């Protein structure tokens, strides 16, 4: 635990990728395989389900620190992270456990799950006493499931690849599914990650998907596309669907569905079991969307329903018959990664697409559709077609070079995918509530609730909250806004402050829908601050009518 905590501290302290890479390599070079197995798991985003209920953790911390509950809460508000707060208020320990991460996870922490409160209350304090403060904080973060450190999976992959003398794409492939909840890190599993390549490796993958190839944002004006991208006929153009990116893997008579987070979601989408008709050794990349059969007009894309509907299905643990009937899904396929058991990722885009069309035609399934290709005479022509995006419920277009190979993650060395998104919806809204942020924003008021007027200027009207946003400001702006919030606070409700409305921001968001759950009757997707409207008085902010216009 100590070595892992030291690694955490080192990774946390620097913003340099090279320094992080060096720290990772040094750790993996020294660590026992079973410890390294767990380190890879946590560093690449693995999170076991919460081991101890948060409430119990709080109560125990309060009891052990001897603090009144309100003072613990004040402390938590200042720190912004429960695990860190607990680690800071617990009494100092003079011990420092030498046991490794794997031993801690397997013998001390994982067995805690599901224990009755009385037993947890007995077991946790002696555990904590064995740890120095840094290890204690890391241990608490593992317990609460809030372990996060500024390392990308790609960086972990690179560190392992360099250590093992392997191509990092190979390691990325082996890492797929490593952080899935059903997977338990073991020494053996870790040694396989860094083992020399073997011939039968490809055959032993079971249901594993490939690392997803991710797109880069294209933000230049369309006039520059010819210079930047060359002629548009060199590109495969599709709509950018607003659904869940997924791979469908069919091997050995079984079918698996993986989401972009490399989470196995087969059970959430039973519809796709119909695709067991695909030949063994087929992997398709595409987008899961809600699909309804209805007569579309000619320029209408297939019957894709808004993301809001899909959202209603995602969170459900059990899927009722009714839900499956009301919100049926289908896959809009856009790439073929494996065919006849062979890795097709090093085939050019166009070749993969041609074969994908054949595979889809043979399957002839109502839950498998091709993502249609769009054609334009020029980039300007495509830009005109793209204006229909909002109406069609898509986010814009995807541009894929016809000769591009299928890369790993957000890389450009194998070829490029561009996402050419439409501009977000915008509205000028008033900041009315603020709450302190977490992590590096702890103790700063950075999470805001925004409102618009419920009537036109000159009438008696009030501000109606409709969105929360916390991203888009620079650090300097954040500090300025924080100071204004403190100066203009009207009331405090727990961690939330209401303020005298003085601040207007241009908010951007991706989608808008009617909602019964919001006071304003409207829900927006991915709201964020585009800019601070210093020039706009509160009276000139937008009204609900503006939002309602966007709905149609």
């Amino acid at each position: 635990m100590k070595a892992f905590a030291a690694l955490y501290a080192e990774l946390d302290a620097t913003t340099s990728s090279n320094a992080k890479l060096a720290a990772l390599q040094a750790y993996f070079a020294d660590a026992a395989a079973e410890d390294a197995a767990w380190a890879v798991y946590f560093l690449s985003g693995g999170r076991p389900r919460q081991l101890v209920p948060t409430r119990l953790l709080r109560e125990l911390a309060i009891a052990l620190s001897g603090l009144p509950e309100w003072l613990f809460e004040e402390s938590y508000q200042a720190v912004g992270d429960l695990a860190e707060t607990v680690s800071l208020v617990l009494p100092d320990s003079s011990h420092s456990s030498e046991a490794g991460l794997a031993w801690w996870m397997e013998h001390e922490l994982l067995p805690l799950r599901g224990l009755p409160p009385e037993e947890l209350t007995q077991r946790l304090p002696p555990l904590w006493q064995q740890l120095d403060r840094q290890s204690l904080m890391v241990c608490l973060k593992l317990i609460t499931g809030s372990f996060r450190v500024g390392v990308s999976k790609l960086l972990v992959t690179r560190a392992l690849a360099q250590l093992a003398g392997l191509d990092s794409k190979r390691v990325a492939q082996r890492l797929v599914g490593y952080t899935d909840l059903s997977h338990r890190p073991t020494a053996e599993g870790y040694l396989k990650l860094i083992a020399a390549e073997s011939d039968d490796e490809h055959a032993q993958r079971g249901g594993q998907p490939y690392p997803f190839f991710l797109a880069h944002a294209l933000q230049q004006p369309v006039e520059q596309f010819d210079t930047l991208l060359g002629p548009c006929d060199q590109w495969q153009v599709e709509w950018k669907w607003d659904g869940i990116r997924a791979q469908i893997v069919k091997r050995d008579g079984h079918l698996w569905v993986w989401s972009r987070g490399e989470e196995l979601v087969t059970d959430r989408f039973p519809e796709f079991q119909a695709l067991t008709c695909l030949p063994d050794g087929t992997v398709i990349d595409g987008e899961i969307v809600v699909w309804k059969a209805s007569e579309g007009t000619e320029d209408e894309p297939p019957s894709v329903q808004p993301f809001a509907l899909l959202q209603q299905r995602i969170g459900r643990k059990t899927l009722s018959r009714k839900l499956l009937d009301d919100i049926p899904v289908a896959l809009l396929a856009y790439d073929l990664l494996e065919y006849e058991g062979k890795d097709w990722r090093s085939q050019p885009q166009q070749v993969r697409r041609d074969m994908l069309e054949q595979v889809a035609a043979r399957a002839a399934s109502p839950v498998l559709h091709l993502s249609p290709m769009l054609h334009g005479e020029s980039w300007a022509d495509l830009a005109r077609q793209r204006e229909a995006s909002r109406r069609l419920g898509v986010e814009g277009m995807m541009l894929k070079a016809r000769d591009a190979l299928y890369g790993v993650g957000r890389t450009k060395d194998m070829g490029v995918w561009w996402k050419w998104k439409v501009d977000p919806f915008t509205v000028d809204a008033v900041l009315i509530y603020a709450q302190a942020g977490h992590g590096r924003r702890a103790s700063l008021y950075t999470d805001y609730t925004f409102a618009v007027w419920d009537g036109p200027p000159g009438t008696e009207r009030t501000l109606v909250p409709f969105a929360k946003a916390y991203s888009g400001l620079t650090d300097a702006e954040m500090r300025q806004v924080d100071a204004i919030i403190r100066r203009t606070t009207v009331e405090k409700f727990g961690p939330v402050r209401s303020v005298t409305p003085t601040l207007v921001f241009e908010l951007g968001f991706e989608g808008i829908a009617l909602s019964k759950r919001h006071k304003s009757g409207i829900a927006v997707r991915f709201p964020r601050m585009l800019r601070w409207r210093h020039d706009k008085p509160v009276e000139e902010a937008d009204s609900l009518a503006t939002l309602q216009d966007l709905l149609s």
Partner: protein
Amino acid sequence: MDLVIARPEGLYCTAGDFYIDPWRPVPRSVITHGHGDHARVGNGHYLATDIGAGILRSRLGADINLQTLAYGEKLVHNGVTLSLHPAGHVLGSAQVRLEYQGEVWVASGDYKVEPDGTCEPFEPVRCHTFITESTFGLPIYRWQPQAEIFEEVNQWWRENAAAGKASVLFCYAFGKAQRLLHGIDASIGPILTHGSVEPLNRVYREAGVHIPATHYAGDFKKTDEALRSALIVAPPSAGGSTWMRRFGDYSDAFASGWMRLRGTRRRRGVDRGFVLSDHADWPGLLWAIEQTGAQRVMVTHGSVNVLVRYLRDQGLDAQGFTTEYGDEDEAATEPQPE
């Protein structure tokens, strides 16, 4: 009538008709220490410790109307007996003891309870009413012994020097810089200072505090080999300036009590955060309050509401004093001048 009340100009001694650390110009002022938020220009008359006089004059002007007292020396003004006692914060820092018709008030200014060898250690003064600061008034703030922190700094400097990298240590120029210089292992490499740090080093040296030999960083060229193993002590304002370019590939660190929290440490964007403060931590505040024996406690700048509520729960008569040293939780957002 209370002996000290909060007025728009600052903390005011009613019977004595003078202010303690006023933030607006007043005819008569008592200054606890030379930091900018406590010692301001424009007062008609200043009273401070003799040890702090040099610093006050260098910051506020040589021609200020300044009267000085030794620690413990008594002065009677309008019937109020006034004396200054060590606050352990920075060189010359004082608590102000006021006695009037048998009632004793003590205003702490800023204070720290761990002796550090660069200034007279904090001395608890018995009183009926204690006016305390509360900069780090939350139980999450508990300091490690400073020797451990100095060892962390030494270790960081040694590792950088071994890797051929300059070590840039950001800290406030008055107090923190000298405490660090006094505490670290000066044999590791050359020590360079920013132009704002050196005049204060001189004042400390003149006061008999050991500060190792330092060089003015501006005298060094980027190519100078000495930089590769040097420790550079600079104020936070130097960070990100062109002045920093001369140090090439350096590692940077910030020394402050705020570095105790991961969030503030990361916001600083430095490689290392050393938890070293010239203010009392939570146990320090509670210990100091207890030592005074005061039944009444007035809480100023920092976590006012928290400390007031906590002390009331302990059965003390506590209340907040509104000052312009900072809003009650604003202190947590940005490192304050310490």
